[in-house]
């Protein structure tokens, strides 16, 4: 560690005749020193180094000075403020200063004792000494030794100054070239932990802000009351004397501060409001769809005039789009049950949901307003964790335990306490939890897209279903398995969930009530209904808006692990026609027997799910949808043709940008094969590979797709406009 020569003294505050400042330039430590004049409380000196160096250590000998601080600067920029290299340090205690005993002190500073600025290169040092405790002594510096880091290879520990032993010696840490980076590198080795930390930070922030939003200030109301109370009293002289601009006028400093805080809070309060507005716009879309299919509505009314009279908008809408006349007695029952609670309009619907929730969790610690509720639903059900957990406590435990039975989850990116909460939810839902991704895993619960675990899972080549934690919460709330794609952590896999008020979110009815069970009579009725449907030559359907939602099909089909992939097949742009016609074909061929019935219904439900989606997106059919889909030219033509052909099921469906995840890779990577095989494969076999781009193609594909994507928008809008006319 070579010592740096001090070239000359640039400047100084004062010097003693016998102890001039130039004594500091001596290479050897002698008896000579620099002292300031008597009676000054602080003195300073600026030294010019021989060249600009990085400072690795400084040894300072001080005489009678109580505090010493070292700053650094550059002669090129003399006006820039000096930066601290050694923060202010005590050399003598007040007592020692006053006694003026043991006046010589040496301290050395290196490694962590130096401020961060020492890592830069400097050529000027400024030393500031002070002695506030003794006005009668002269004080100053005996020597200043500056060391730079070893330039080549071997680093010896800096020779500890012999004199430093008398006082506290510094640790001998030193920076080697590249050492800093090495340290950073080792620190960043555990990326998983880092990400967890980062998320926890983010989540904390979110939680904090939500807390702020939730806690309204009582101040407002109470202040108003004060004003109200004070107002009449101002007429009286005495009160006027005491209370003129008492607490109400914001001109005093304190009130200004309070006012500012309140403004900030208000701003934060506005944020959720905008979200609510988004929800409103969604509703508008839905209404548009309803208008589009007035014809069907008419027919509907004839079919189910009894039940539909009071039905809410949502129900109508879904019925409209899914074209069918199949009204089983079972669904009638459901509707009748439904109409008890539901009214027109989504607000009421969410109110009803609130009531339901309250019934199921009467002990839930936080009462929320209906507005809060609907906001929660917008978020995909991320709401108060306590409330969710309290749902676990009720007597539906057995029912809940079946919801995700057979699923095997891996959590990624979540930190405590949220991690623990999700683990509890998952266990309550009957899922198995594993610490790391393996062949047995079915779902990955990611805090955010592209966690390391998710990437590893993709790399493993298996089917990876990556959902956010809200999925579990929503499942608990709905007491049934909701499609994970509603909560997919990655955009390209995500399916837009139904609007907040949609019955798909509602809790499934408690386990088999005697009325709802499929008795033989019921089955007979269903079959008859289906026969009628067939004779009327229209695709069968079951009306949406009954107590059961799209996700229920998974329960019915038991151990069929791939059921969740079904919507994708149906949504795939190029295959819409085939799948719908296949569904129709099934309807025709479905004879007696419950098995075929369930198959039919599941197929039709798939279509229905598609159309649910449609109803959300039609009209201006959102821009983002296209982007997600990245369809190729061929799939697009097919889509347009399909849309025209299958007008009934897919009237709006063609415009629905639904197949976000699935359509893309097959269209791009191996379009024909993927599309055909999955469309034609009669049994839903889990075929993992075609779901994602193979790595090789990805890059080229993105560029190609970008080009096609632009062209597609043009054709798409044309085809849609012709359709809607």
């Amino acid at each position, binding site marked *: 560690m070579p010592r740096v020569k001090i070239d000359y003294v640039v400047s100084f505050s004062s010097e003693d005749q016998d102890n001039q400042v130039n004594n500091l330039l001596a290479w050897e430590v002698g008896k000579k020193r620099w002292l300031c004049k008597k009676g000054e409380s602080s003195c300073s000196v600026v030294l010019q180094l021989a060249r600009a160096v990085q400072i690795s250590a400084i040894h300072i000998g001080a005489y009678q000075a109580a505090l010493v601080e070292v700053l650094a600067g550059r002669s090129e920029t003399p006006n820039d403020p000096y930066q601290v290299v050694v923060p*202010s340090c005590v050399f003598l205690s007040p007592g020692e200063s006053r006694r003026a005993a043991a006046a010589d002190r040496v301290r050395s500073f290196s490694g962590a004792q130096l401020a961060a600025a020492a890592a830069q290169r400097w050529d000027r040092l400024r030393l500031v000494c002070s002695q506030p405790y003794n006005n009668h002594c002269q004080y100053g510096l005996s020597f200043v030794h500056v060391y730079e880091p070893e330039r080549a290879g071997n680093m010896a520990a800096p020779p500890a100054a012999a004199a430093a032993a008398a006082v506290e010696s510094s640790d001998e840490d030193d920076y080697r070239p590249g050492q800093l980076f090495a340290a950073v590198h080792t620190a960043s080795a555990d990326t998983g932990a880092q990400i967890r930390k980062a998320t926890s930070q983010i989540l904390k922030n979110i939680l904090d802000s939500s807390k702020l939003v939730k*806690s309204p200030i009582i101040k407002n109301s109470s202040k108003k009351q004060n004003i109200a109370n004070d107002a009449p009293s101002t007429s009286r002289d005495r009160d006027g004397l005491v209370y003129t601009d008492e607490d109400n006028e914001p001109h005093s400093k304190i009130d200004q501060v309070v006012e500012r805080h309140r403004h900030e809070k208000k701003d934060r309060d506005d944020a959720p409001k905008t979200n609510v507005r988004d929800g409103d716009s969604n509703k508008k879309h839905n209404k548009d769809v309803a208008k589009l299919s007035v014809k069907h509505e008419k027919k509907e009314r004839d079919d189910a005039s009894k039940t539909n009279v009071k039905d809410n908008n949502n129900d109508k809408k879904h019925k409209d789009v899914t074209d069918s006349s199949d009204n089983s007695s079972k669904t009638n029952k459901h509707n009748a049950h439904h109409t008890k609670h539901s009214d027109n309009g989504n607000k009421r619907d969410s109110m009803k949901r609130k009531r339901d929730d309250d019934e199921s969790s009467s002990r839930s610690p936080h009462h929320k307003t209906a507005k809060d509720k609907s906001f929660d639903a917008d978020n995909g059900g991320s709401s108060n964790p306590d409330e969710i957990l309290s749902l676990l406590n009720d007597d539906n435990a057995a029912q809940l335990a079946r919801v995700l039975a057979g699923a095997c989850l891996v959590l990624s990116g979540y930190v405590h306490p949220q991690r623990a909460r999700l683990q509890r939810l998952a266990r309550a839902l009957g899922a198995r939890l594993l610490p790391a991704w393996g062949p047995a895993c079915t779902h990955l619960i990611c805090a955010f897209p592209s966690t390391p675990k998710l990437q590893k899972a993709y790399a493993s080549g298996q089917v990876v279903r990556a959902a956010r934690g809200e999925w579990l919460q929503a499942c608990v709330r709905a007491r049934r398995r909701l499609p994970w794609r509603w909560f997919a952590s990655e955009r390209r896999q995500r399916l837009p969930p139904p609007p907040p008020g949609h019955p798909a979110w509602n809790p499934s009815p408690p386990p088999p009530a005697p009325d709802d069970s499929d008795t033989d009579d019921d089955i007979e009725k269903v079959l008859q209904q289906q026969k009628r449907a067939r004779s009327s030559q229209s695709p069968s359907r079951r009306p949406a808006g009954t107590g059961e939602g799209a996700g229920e099909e998974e329960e019915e089909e038991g151990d069929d692990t791939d059921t969740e992939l079904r919507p994708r097949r149906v949504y795939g742009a190029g295959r819409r026609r085939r799948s719908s016609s296949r569904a129709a074909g099934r309807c025709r061929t479905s004879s007696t027997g419950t098995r075929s019935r369930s198959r039919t219904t599941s197929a039709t439900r798939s279509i229905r799910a598609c159309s649910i989606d449609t109803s959300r997106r039609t009209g201006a059919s959102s821009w983002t949808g296209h982007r997600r889909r990245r369809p190729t030219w061929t799939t697009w033509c097919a889509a347009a043709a399909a849309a025209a052909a299958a007008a009934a099921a897919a009237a709006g469906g063609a415009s629905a940008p639904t197949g976000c995840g699935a359509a893309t890779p097959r269209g791009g990577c191996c379009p024909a094969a993927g599309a055909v095989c999955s469309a034609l494969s009669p049994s839903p076999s889990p075929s993992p590979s075609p779901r994602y781009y193979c790595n090789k193609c990805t890059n080229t594909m993105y560029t190609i797709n970008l080009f096609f994507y632009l062209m597609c928008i043009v054709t798409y809008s044309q085809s849609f406009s012709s359709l809607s006319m």
Partner: protein
Amino acid sequence: MSKRKNPSNNSNVNADFCDFLIELSEYEKNVSRNIHKYNAYKKAASVLAAHHKRIESGEEAKKLNGIGDKISKKIDEFLQTGKLKKLENIHQNEEVQAVNLLTRVSGIGPVKAAQFVRDGLRTIEDLRKNQDKLNHHQNIGLKYFEDFEKSIPRSEIEEIEEILKKNINSIGAEFSVTVCGSYRRGKAYSGDIDVLITHPSVKVSDGKKKRGGEVLKKLINKLNESLITDTISIGATKFMGVCRLSKELPYRRLDIRLIPCEQYYCAVLYFTGSDVFNKSMRAHALEQGFTLNEYSLRPIGITGVPGEPIHITSEEEIFEYINYPYKKPEERN
């Protein structure tokens, strides 16, 4: 920090002023959540409490440090009418009263209290009926609500200190123990018991987790047999809980902190208080070019960067460094 701080003592000739000022300060803290007004009222109350003679008019009070236009007018109004309009309004407002009541429970602050009141929980009885809405700390605060309201006589703390010292010394001889808070300031009654412990082996550089290892837990386990009845929370460096000397005496709030030896005296100074004294001391330190907090005393460089923590071996040294005449704990009220 105790919820029952009260600057007025027996010899206070301005006690009635102090009472209404403290009530106003509570209102500002709990209900309107304006910490600055709270501090202003607090300061005025403590200044009046320390004043040797009875205040006769608002004009006279205004000359005191910490009493300005508004408070002097309030004193005038109080002197002339015997009551205060603002206070009357507060008394009439049930919501305010409920919030004030609930904040008296240990573990319930203004925010939580306001939330409870919004949820319709207005009395201690309501809380007892809805214990599932409280956390562990609040439940304990509720359980011993009446006991925690009672102030602790000095003699009782002395006995508790004795037991603590005996137990700690049986773990290691070099431990030092200080009971801080108003007890150390020589008050006859205290709201709670604040105990600081250190050992030469407990260093800042060890990091929070390793610091002192299991010393605190070991100590608490020992005390669990004789003194401590409940634990609100316990970590590596801080214990919060409830103790009781004997069956006849009420339950008391007890805090024990394990402090690294380098920070011990700054911590003792801080936890001895009083809060007003701490504020004035810190302000003085800043004037002298130092920054003082409960961890360390550091010189401030000419660019405003705080320097390294000064090695301190006694409370007096802190005063010495910042050129502040030493005040015994009893003089810091």
